[in-house]
């Protein structure tokens, strides 16, 4: 029999969900208007006041919030509660101009953890389970989210954080981990290692909850067939609290959005008009419950489809399909957001030309990123050691900017194709 973490809410009739969303939206808009001058100004700019918003049918009247707005508001501009009520921040990775800081009250954290708990229960998790969390801990939301969710479920939590594969496998074997939570690429690596080290008979995994980066059905089947467990997708973004915005159930056919907390829309990224369910477009979320950081109509740039057909698991919350891509130039590599403009900034800073090419690929289920960089007179030398030293400095600067290791390839000047108009800067060979 299907189990739920919060049955009443997760199986609430759709009409009631919509009613709940309408009530919460009205309150949330008022909250943002009263406490976030930046958002109030945005509303005033389009001549909308909280009185104009009487329910979700009025959502389209509200202005969007974009990542640029968040950057503009960094760090405290979007904060809607006094600091004394704020108990935590989490942040996106990297040391970039695109950094996003998300604030939480204790209630915000409880809701976030409950959302993750719903995902764990949907994956079959109970208080009997041993949940090994090998998402990164720290500012990254992955570790904290699944950790909190596992606590709420009452499972035994292994706060492993990422890396140290030897230790991961040792604990997995010794403590008989039943649920694994990490990025899909790390899960694929662990799967490979389990096979290579002959540990298949010694592990007891029944489910995996994998998110923070896009992954394919092929990857899912590979892992499931090899280890004999079920691999579930989970979605979220730091701006909305982290993982647990939506999650897969046993159907493994779309992720149920926690609609009591997140109001989803699909828009045409060009006209910004709302699109009907079942149409591909840009996903937009309104956080209905977040009190410290109330994002309204936040443009995720993720392109996907919404499905409101009933699901056999009994959950009534709408499902979102796998992400089809991005409506901007952002790449997600190894779970990290990468903007070509960040790479460009580093290249120019280090005396290289802004003519470059990024090649993203996936080898053995793990993302790779290579950057072709043209040699310049400033960086050229008769001494190979000098060239190598500068190349190493460039790699280090890219690592500092992006938080991931980038492979640099020096090529001859003007050897990278110049195209008319918009240059082809990014070649993504991954098949997701």
């Amino acid at each position, binding site marked *: 029999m299907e189990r739920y973490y919060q049955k009443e809410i997760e199986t609430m009739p759709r009409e009631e969900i919509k009613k709940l969303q309408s009530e919460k939206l009205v309150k949330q808009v008022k909250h943002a208007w009263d406490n976030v001058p930046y958002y109030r100004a945005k509303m005033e700019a389009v001549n909308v006041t909280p009185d104009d918003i009487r329910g979700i049918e009025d959502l389209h009247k509200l202005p969007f919030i974009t990542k640029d707005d968040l950057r503009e508001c960094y760090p405290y501009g979007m904060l809607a509660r006094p600091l004394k009520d704020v108990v935590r921040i989490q942040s996106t990775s990297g040391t970039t101009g695109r950094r996003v800081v998300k604030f939480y009250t204790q209630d915000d954290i409880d809701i976030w953890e409950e959302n993750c708990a719903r995902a764990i229960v949907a994956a079959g998790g109970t208080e009997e389970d041993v949940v090994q969390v090998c998402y990164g801990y720290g500012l990254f939301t992955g570790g904290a989210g699944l950790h909190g969710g596992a606590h709420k479920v009452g499972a035994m939590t292994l706060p492993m954080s990422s890396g140290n594969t030897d230790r991961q496998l040792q604990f997995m074997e010794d403590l008989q981990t039943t649920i694994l939570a990490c990025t899909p690429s790390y899960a694929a690596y662990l799967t490979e290692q389990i096979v290579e080290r002959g540990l298949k008979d010694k592990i007891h995994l029944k489910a995996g909850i994998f998110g923070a980066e896009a992954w394919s059905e092929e990857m899912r089947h590979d892992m499931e067939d090899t280890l004999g467990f079920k691999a579930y997708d989970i979605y979220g973004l730091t701006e909305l609290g982290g993982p647990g915005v939506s999650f897969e159930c046993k159907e493994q056919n779309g992720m149920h959005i926690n609609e009591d907390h997140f109001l989803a829309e699909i828009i045409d990224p060009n006209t910004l008009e709302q699109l009907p369910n079942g149409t591909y477009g840009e996903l937009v979320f309104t956080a209905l419950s977040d009190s410290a950081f109330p994002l309204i109509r936040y443009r995720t740039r993720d392109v996907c489809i919404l499905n409101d057909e009933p699901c056999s698991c009994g959950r009534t919350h709408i499902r979102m399909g796998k992400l089809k891509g991005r409506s901007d130039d952002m790449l997600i590599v190894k779970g990290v957001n990468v903007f070509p403009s960040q790479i460009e900034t580093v290249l120019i800073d280090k005396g290289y030309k802004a003519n470059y090419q990024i090649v993203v690929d996936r080898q053995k289920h793990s993302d790779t990123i290579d950057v072709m960089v043209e*040699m310049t*007179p400033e960086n*050229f030398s*008769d*001494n*190979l050691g000098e060239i*190598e030293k500068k190349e190493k400095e460039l790699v280090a600067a890219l690592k500092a900017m992006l938080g991931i290791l980038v492979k640099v390839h020096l090529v001859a000047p*003007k050897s990278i194709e110049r195209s008319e108009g918009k240059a082809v800067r990014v070649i993504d060979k991954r098949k997701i």
Partner: protein
Amino acid sequence: MKISQITVFLENRAGQLAEITAELDANNINMRAINIAETAEYGLARIIAEDSEKAVQILKDKGFAAMLTDVVAIGVPHRAGGLNDILQIIAAAGIDIEYMYSLIGEQDGIAYMVFRTKDADALQKELADKGIF
């Protein structure tokens, strides 16, 4: 003798070196020596040509990363110990050689070596003091 050497950046792919020699050929520039240094990812071609100034300009105009470097060309007697005599002098003077390679000369019985050190003038003077040119 202090001379100018051309250094050109080489991408690690088939045909790259031939593109450089084709340019020099098209401009009727004779090479006296060429030496390749390589890493896993790229390389450097070091060339002594009859008109280095002109050659480097041609290559730059064609989009190659190219530059001139001062090196010292020394005649080495074509006999056992010929090079050793010279290296002993350089070693005794505490001069660090970054790299060296041979150069085609026109005089019989003498081999030429190209030496790259931090200070070409210092090397030239050290050897000239010992009667080596």
